[in-house]
């Protein structure tokens, strides 16, 4: 049961999950991480998946991001059934349609901030100077214009996450998945990142799907989906 706080940009369903289940096998024990999850997210919505640790938030996010495969059920992203895609097609879909922001940023240490940002763009379209300019523009958007040549080791935690946000946006993804993006940050930096995501959601009409266990962040969402024990509880 999902309810939107306000009607967003359009009514096109961009994420549709039906009867989704995910089991993990730990030796002979089967852990049911997700139990029959159903939800729909419309294009341009800022949705928040809220729940305690171990509730299945990240599992659901990983399934939506196509970096894990469900035990059963369907995931349709922008009208495409993704469950039957092979590894290569999933990677291609991820590169073209999904931006991922991780809790731990996951930047490549050997690359500069600029290189980290334009890497997905180069993988998608090949190197060009316009892409470089676009990557610089992305870094400017997240307030990192002055730090483009710095490597992750020389950036603060908040700066790293901003670079990760810029990287997730470089290929103009239809969906932006955020896995507790402020969990490793102090409250000021956390707020900066959330404001940034809200700005991106509004200005770029990006569909943002954010996972958190922090109820202070719920105000950012157009829609809040509660999850507990692997089941979607309610929306508001």
């Amino acid at each position, binding site marked *: 049961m999902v309810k939107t706080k306000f009607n967003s940009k359009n009514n096109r369903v961009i994420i549709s999950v039906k009867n989704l289940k995910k089991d993990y096998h730990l030796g002979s024990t089967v852990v049911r991480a997700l139990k029959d999850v159903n939800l729909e997210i419309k294009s341009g919505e800022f949705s928040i998946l809220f729940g305690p640790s171990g509730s299945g938030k990240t599992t659901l996010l990983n399934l939506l991001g196509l970096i894990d495969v469900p035990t059963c059920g369907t995931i349709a992203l922008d009208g495409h059934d993704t469950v039957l895609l092979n590894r*290569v097609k999933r990677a291609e879909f991820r*590169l073209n349609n999904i931006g991922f922001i991780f809790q731990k940023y*996951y930047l490549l240490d*050997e690359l500069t901030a600029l*290189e980290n940002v334009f890497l997905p763009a180069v993988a998608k379209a090949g*190197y060009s100077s316009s892409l470089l300019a676009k990557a610089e523009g992305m870094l400017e958007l997240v307030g990192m214009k002055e730090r483009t040549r710095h490597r992750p080791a020389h950036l603060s935690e908040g700066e790293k996450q901003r670079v990760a946000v810029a990287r997730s946006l470089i290929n103009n993804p239809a969906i932006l998945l955020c896995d507790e993006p402020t969990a490793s940050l102090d409250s000021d930096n956390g707020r900066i990142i959330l404001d940034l995501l809200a700005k991106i959601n509004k200005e770029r009409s990006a569909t943002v799907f954010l996972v958190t266990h922090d109820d202070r962040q719920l105000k950012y969402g157009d829609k809040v989906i509660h999850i507990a024990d692997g089941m979607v509880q309610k929306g508001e």
Partner: protein
Amino acid sequence: MMLRNLKLSIFLAAKDMFNNLGSLVFVSAALGFLFANVLFSRFMLYGFEKSIGGLIPKVSGNLYATPLRGQSYIYDTQRVMAAIGLNTTIGEMTPVLEMPCVLEYKGSRIVTMAWGLEFGEQVMDLKNSIVEGRYFSGPVSEEIILGKILKRRFKLKIPINEDIALEDTAKGIFIKEYNIDKFNKDVYKDKYVKIVGVADFRDYIANNSIFIPLQTLRNVATLQDRSSSVFIRLKDDMKIDQEGASMYKPYNLDVELKHWKDRDDYGTDDLVYGFNLISIITFGVSIICAAILVAFIVFYNTQKKRRTTGILRAIGIKGRIFLTFFIIEGILFAVIGVVTGTGLYCLLQMYLKAHPIVMPFGDLYPMFEINSYIYATALFLGVSFMASVYYAVKSGKENIIKVIRGD
């Protein structure tokens, strides 16, 4: 598309290597030394094999007559030669008197064998085997010719600032009987002889001996008409095997006819074959060790980049890009190893060629052999390539979440 992927892979590999120069230098040095070791182990033994192989015998004829077991000499040499000579396939014959001998020169002594050869004989063909100095001046000249290896051994024995000079005099102590009785003066026969030349028969035993005119040796040892054996050379178109030698045995005479191979049955051929075998086994073992180490280095490299692989996959970068990235790095490691190793080996070879290990049978230094080099290089590159592909494909199949979390 392929070019784009390749460019991106090269970019990632270059960035990674540039940022890990320390590791790169370490790995290059390790692989370089490893490759140099592979080359050195093969080429040093190859050099040894060639050095020994240079001793492939060209001495004597096809057959030789020898006294029956338990007897020291052929007593009626002329009668034996006459009987054997009836066989029309025989070209040349010569009696030989062999005797243990201690050669004393410039305060040093060396134990060797003295071969008494007929003046002008054409079976051993000593005259045409001389590489330094000259042949005997006559059939009873008190002169000796040194075998090439014996000369080297002697050179290593005499004082370092001295040299073996031709036409110098040396003392030969000839031991007439094998059953040495130190109180019987008849056993030891001393003779001052002039060193007039050096001969090379490319035979270890012959090159380790001295040669003296047969009559001179007979006079010294008072062994007229006796010989230790008769060397026989068959006519040029004749070839017989070891089994066929006994057919030449003269009827009713107390000698045995043997093939020259019987005399040389612990000889150079076997030695060369043995060293060749050792060389190939050593090369094989070191190349397998090298392959394992190369595979391990590639494995370590891919494991070190597990997180990178996970991140690249998570942001949607295709497996073939990091597969190419790993292949480039793996091949680059191997190429650096081959280049560094070849350089190290070349330095070592240059040094050893300038300062060879002096052995009695010749100078010893590594010798380059192209086939082994190609095998070693191909193996280095091949193993790197295969290991890179294997580990890249393996890491491409790992669970992305586990990989980026470092589980």
